[in-house]
């Protein structure tokens, strides 16, 4: 009986030792990120899920705000129907809190108030020199308005720097160099309003492949001192159009594919390719299957022809639909199974998940 308590006591004492105060660096980096990503009022906030909400308690699995809005929409439609049948003239039903409004008469002028603003466009998208490795790009968002040009710098196999380094190329241009891995393919660089903070986001990925350095040259409309510029690398967050995860893996015959994952739910914890050898397939081409491995882990199996080497997986906010899109390849026979496991921070029911594996387009040839 005492053994457990002895171990508990030892463990408690041992864990009590060690640092309790955070170093400045990660706090400073997070502050830089916050500066470069100012929060704007979110008109759809009421529809966003509460990160601490228990999904099982929510009626129909929906957010209270969404349930309310749906009820309001139903009431509005019924009311419009009743009134419309009495007046026998077109009735305009106003949009209800971001929900799509019922069809309106053709003469109705469009609403002057947009429900949600379009995401900002990047200043530029630069194809990075990957030195023969996997292609990589970076979308540049310039909040300062001072960036006048952006181009790739040289790539280097292996890593000789730690993190991200900024140096002056000329008086008005800087070279941003960072360590990465071959699976870092999509990046986003944000230049803050003062052009003194840079935040580079990239997807998470797993794998032990040899690292590589990527670099970007930014030219400004005025002189910039590299030592005054603070740069940070962070993992891509859910949503926002940047893939959260990338992975590479073989199909059952060893043909390599690459997948970028866009997780709108923000609950994806890890993603790994788990295809086994043997060359077999149990699915028709361009179809998929989802199974639970644990309450929080699912296995997605789908079948593709080997020519579909680039895949994109989109996970919707409610983790109810997995949409898989492949690059140009075409349809036909000869598909082989591919597998990946996806672990989430919350339970996911595979029986309620729809794998939407879309057939690739035939391609230019």
């Amino acid at each position, binding site marked *: 009986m005492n053994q457990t308590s002895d171990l508990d006591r*030892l463990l408690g004492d041992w864990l009590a030792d060690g*640092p309790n105060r955070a170093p400045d660096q*990660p706090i400073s980096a997070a502050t830089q990120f916050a500066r470069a990503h100012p929060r704007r009022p979110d008109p759809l906030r009421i529809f*966003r899920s509460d990160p601490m909400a228990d999904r099982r308690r929510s009626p129909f699995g929906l957010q209270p705000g969404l349930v309310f809005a749906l009820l309001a929409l139903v009431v509005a439609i019924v009311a419009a129907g009743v009134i419309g049948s009495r007046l026998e003239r077109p009735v305009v039903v106003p949009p209800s809190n971001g929900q799509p409004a019922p069809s309106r008469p053709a003469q109705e002028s469009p609403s002057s108030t947009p429900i949600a603003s379009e995401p900002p466009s990047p200043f530029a998208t630069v194809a990075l020199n990957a030195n023969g490795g996997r292609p990589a790009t970076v979308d540049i968002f310039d909040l300062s308005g001072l960036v006048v040009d952006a181009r790739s710098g040289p790539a280097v196999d292996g890593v000789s720097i730690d993190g991200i380094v900024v140096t002056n190329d000329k008086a008005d241009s800087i070279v941003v160099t960072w360590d990465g891995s071959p699976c870092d393919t999509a990046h986003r660089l944000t230049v803050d309003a003062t052009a003194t903070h840079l935040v580079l986001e990239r997807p998470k990925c797993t794998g032990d492949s040899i690292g590589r350095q990527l670099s970007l040259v930014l030219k400004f409309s005025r002189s910039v001192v590299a030592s005054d510029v603070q740069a940070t690398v962070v993992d891509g*967050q859910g949503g926002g159009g940047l893939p959260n995860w990338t992975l590479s893996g073989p199909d059952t015959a060893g043909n390599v594919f690459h997948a970028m994952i866009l997780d709108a739910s*923000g609950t994806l914890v*890890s993603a790994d390719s788990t295809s086994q050898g043997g060359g077999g397939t149990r699915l028709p081409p361009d179809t998929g299957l989802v199974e639970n491995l644990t309450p929080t882990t699912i296995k997605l199996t789908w079948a593709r022809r080997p020519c579909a080497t680039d895949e994109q997986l989109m996970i919707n906010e409610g983790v109810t639909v997995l949409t898989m899109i492949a690059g140009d390849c075409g349809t036909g026979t000869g598909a082989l199974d591919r597998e990946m496991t996806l672990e989430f921070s919350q339970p996911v029911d595979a029986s309620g998940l729809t794998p939407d594996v879309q057939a690739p387009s035939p391609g230019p040839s």
Partner: protein
Amino acid sequence: MYGIAYRILRDQYLAEDALQQALITVWNELPRLRDPDRFDAWTYRLIVRASTAEARKAGRTNPTTPLLPDDADASRAPDQYAAIADRDQLERGFRRLTAEQRSVLVLQHYAGLSQAEIADVLGIPVGTAGSRIHYAARALRAAIEADIRSDRSRESVA
């Protein structure tokens, strides 16, 4: 938050990365948190999640530690664990646990959370939290015992 990350990951730099990710998530997701009373549990959840992700990326988890049968403890002397004077042994045993197992032990023994609070932080049923704590402690005992056995075999060979 840093204290929890450090104790789960046992690595300063990984803990800093986990803290940074967790703070960024706090910044991004804070408007979605409707109940201010759940802020503490939410931040615990974020730091545990970020630490688990860092552990996976670093490939530091080793889930293959064999578990001893339940009756293995019966043969142990009462002061066996008290004899673990060398904290390196505890460190080695702890490092052999998975990040999920380390997380529940850190939340219980370092953060001082109850079983129900751990369940809330991890978003799992209370019973599941209890079983995770039980199996984590059992795995730690097994890892320490495996360490002790390998030390003894080395001594007998010498």
